[in-house]
């Protein structure tokens, strides 16, 4: 049912504007007009709040905290209590000051961590590289220190000329006794690699000049061990890596503790600031004079009394309320709020996939609550499957998320219809009920009575479509849209005349009676064209297709029944062996999933296309009252 809305205007003394708006926020029933007027009289408070809100959110993200789902209203209330006595102009600077210290410390930690991680990465690369030379270093350990190891970046093709140049230099210095140039090369992934050379100390001054000539670059050790020789630096490097690792872990632990401690507090602070920002935005948008302010919006009629009482009690003569019903020209602006009994309320989820119905439209929730489980139950039509769905629904009804609880409620009703139609078709996990308990159908078996079931579902479709048309006619009359009720009436009369034709064809009534449905057909056509034009004629033809579309209920039900029979056939072929039972169970599992998913999807489709198409007018606006958001939807925007 679509709730009746009233246009509420609130006037108040300007000095108490913030309080009044805060109270309206707490009451949470007033849907304010979007972007009503430009921002007026914003003294920088709104901008300050927005900046601070953004800053707090940035800190939450910098901490890497993302557990918004564990936050409760009570956490936000604590933040509210801390600052409730201060106006935004005072608490914004206070909070900013305390955040300065926190964010400085946090950024120091994070910068330190980034630097250390970078250094650790370089140390590890150096250690890895030197480890690949360790065999070479050990082979040429020289206690006399007459030679030393050097490391060079050099492309592979430059190695022979480089070695030749070094050899020549050795010879020119009269060091034929040194022997060949001992070297080891570790290629890089692409391009240059590292060449390690053992050269005599005497060559030390000249080696750099040779390297420059041969386009080789010196490979330097990290700072922590640049005073050591490469061959003796490995233990020092390892110690440096271990120490840095420990330091990094310590910083990470520190950050993690900060995140656990401050993340929820900052998140609650963000939500508090978000609320205050929203209230400040409303304040800035309100119409103001020197002494008074006003704002307007839509309020459900059933909430009007409590709102008036609450405001009058708290503010007395400082607030004035005026309300009225919406005019005809305002219907398109009125938000749509649905309110249904608890039994039907879970089915409102089907309307969430569409735009809300217009304020003067029809809320189809009750009709969906009646027909959706009914159609699904016909398609599933198995006592065993119905019992499993029932157990599943009981589990879902205990879920924390409201959507899952709604799905549980819907499945519960589907399960009851599935069991009922399972008794009608005589199915309990296919024909296992018949085999074990001699279960007989109350009407017929789906796999054998295909045509009667198809005729039944088409008749069901006709009734459903006719109901849709009747609702459309009623809407047209109620809203005084003559073309709507004329078109729907014409459509209905044409369908009725077609049914009359069929009835007369199949019966033994005299052929003279055919003139009755012909007359109605003509009347229907006239109404249809008058109301809907040529489009109406196409719509009427489409209605016939819509009715035939309901045969899918029989088709999907039949496929489910036959698949269940196939499962039993596996038992016939393999007997009561492990393989036979396993295969039968797998087929039943597949059938169950297909039956539940298929029945839900096709029932929904029949409603969305065939049923809603006859009367549903969307174009409504969502009812979003000015209130605290709850649940995961309050996450950062």
């Amino acid at each position, binding site marked *: 049912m679509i709730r009746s809305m009233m246009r509420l205007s609130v006037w108040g003394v300007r000095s108490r504007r913030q309080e009044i708006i805060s109270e309206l926020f707490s009451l949470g029933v007033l849907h304010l007009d979007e972007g009503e007027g430009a921002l007026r009289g914003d003294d920088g408070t709104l901008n300050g709040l927005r900046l601070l809100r953004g800053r707090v959110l940035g800190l939450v993200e910098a901490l890497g905290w993302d557990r918004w789902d564990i936050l409760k209203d009570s956490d936000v209330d604590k933040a509210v209590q801390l600052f409730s006595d201060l106006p935004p102009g005072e608490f914004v600077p206070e909070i900013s000051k305390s955040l300065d210290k926190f964010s400085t410390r946090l950024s120091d930690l994070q910068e330190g961590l980034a630097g250390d991680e970078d250094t650790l990465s370089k140390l590890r690369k150096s250690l890895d590289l030197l480890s690949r030379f360790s065999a070479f270093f050990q082979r040429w350990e020289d206690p006399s220190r007459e030679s030393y190891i050097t490391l060079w970046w050099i492309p592979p093709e430059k190695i022979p000329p480089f070695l030749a140049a070094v050899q020549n230099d050795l010879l020119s210095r009269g060091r034929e006794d040194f022997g060949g140039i001992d070297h080891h090369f570790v290629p890089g992934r692409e391009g240059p690699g590292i060449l390690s050379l053992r050269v005599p100390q005497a060559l030390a001054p000249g080696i750099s000049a040779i390297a420059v000539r041969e386009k080789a670059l010196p490979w330097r050790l990290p700072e922590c061990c640049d005073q050591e020789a490469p061959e003796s630096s490995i233990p020092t490097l390892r110690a440096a890596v271990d120490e840095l690792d420990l330091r990094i872990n310590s910083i990470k632990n520190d950050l993690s503790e900060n995140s656990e401690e401050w993340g929820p507090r900052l998140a609650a602070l963000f939500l508090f600031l978000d609320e205050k920002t929203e209230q400040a935005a409303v304040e800035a948008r309100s119409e103001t004079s020197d002494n008074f302010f006003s704002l307007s919006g839509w309020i459900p009629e059933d909430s009007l009394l409590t709102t008036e009482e609450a405001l009058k009690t708290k503010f007395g003569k400082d607030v004035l309320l005026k309300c009225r019903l919406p005019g005809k020209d305002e219907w398109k602006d009125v938000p749509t709020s649905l309110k249904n009994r608890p039994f039907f309320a879970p089915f409102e989820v089907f309307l969430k996939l569409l735009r809300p119905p217009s304020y003067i439209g029809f809320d189809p929730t009750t009709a969906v609550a009646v027909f959706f489980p009914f159609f699904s139950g016909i398609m599933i039509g198995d006592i065993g499957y119905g019992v499993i769905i029932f157990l599943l629904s009981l589990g879902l009804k205990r879920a924390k998320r409201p959507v899952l609880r709604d799905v549980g409620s819907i499945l519960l009703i589907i399960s009851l219809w599935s069991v009922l139609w399972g008794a009608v078709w005589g199915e309990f996990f296919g024909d296992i009920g018949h085999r074990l308990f001699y279960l007989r159908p109350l009407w017929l078996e789906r796999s054998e009575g295909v*045509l009667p079931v198809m005729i039944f579902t088409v008749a069901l479709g006709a009734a459903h479509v006719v109901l849709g048309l009747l609702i459309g006619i009623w809407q047209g009359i109620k809203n005084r849209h003559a073309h709507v009720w004329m078109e729907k009436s014409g459509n209905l009369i044409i369908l009725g005349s077609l049914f009359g034709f069929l009835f007369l064809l199949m019966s033994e009534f005299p052929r003279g009676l055919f003139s009755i449905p012909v007359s109605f057909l003509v009347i229907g056509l006239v109404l249809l064209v008058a109301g809907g034009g040529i489009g109406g004629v196409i719509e009427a033809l489409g209605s016939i297709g819509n009715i*035939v*579309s309901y*045969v*899918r209920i029989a088709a999907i039900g039949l496929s489910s029944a036959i698949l269940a029979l196939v499962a039993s056939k596996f038992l016939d072929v393999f007997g009561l062996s492990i393989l036979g039972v396993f295969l039968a169970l797998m087929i039943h599992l597949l059938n169950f999933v297909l039956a539940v998913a298929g029945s839900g999807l096709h029932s929904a489709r029949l409603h969305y*296309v065939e049923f809603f198409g006859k009367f549903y007018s969307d174009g409504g606006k969502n009812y979003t009252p000015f209130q605290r958001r709850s649940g995961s939807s309050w996450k950062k925007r």
Partner: protein
Amino acid sequence: MEKALIALAAALAVGLPALATAYAQARIGSAGAGTVAEKPETGGTIIILEAIPETMVILGFVVAIMIILQLA
């Protein structure tokens, strides 16, 4: 031979519309995925559009059943 042809007719009556439905739904589905990625609020409309071509295969199934019943 006649029964075989009737059975073949029933198979074609449901198979060809099934192919057509699959082709239509493939095109709608891929376009719909892109639409929903840009505008999540159109999800409901896309689901409805995705389900519309199924009427072809349902009607093909009806014809196939009627043919099979003749065979029986």
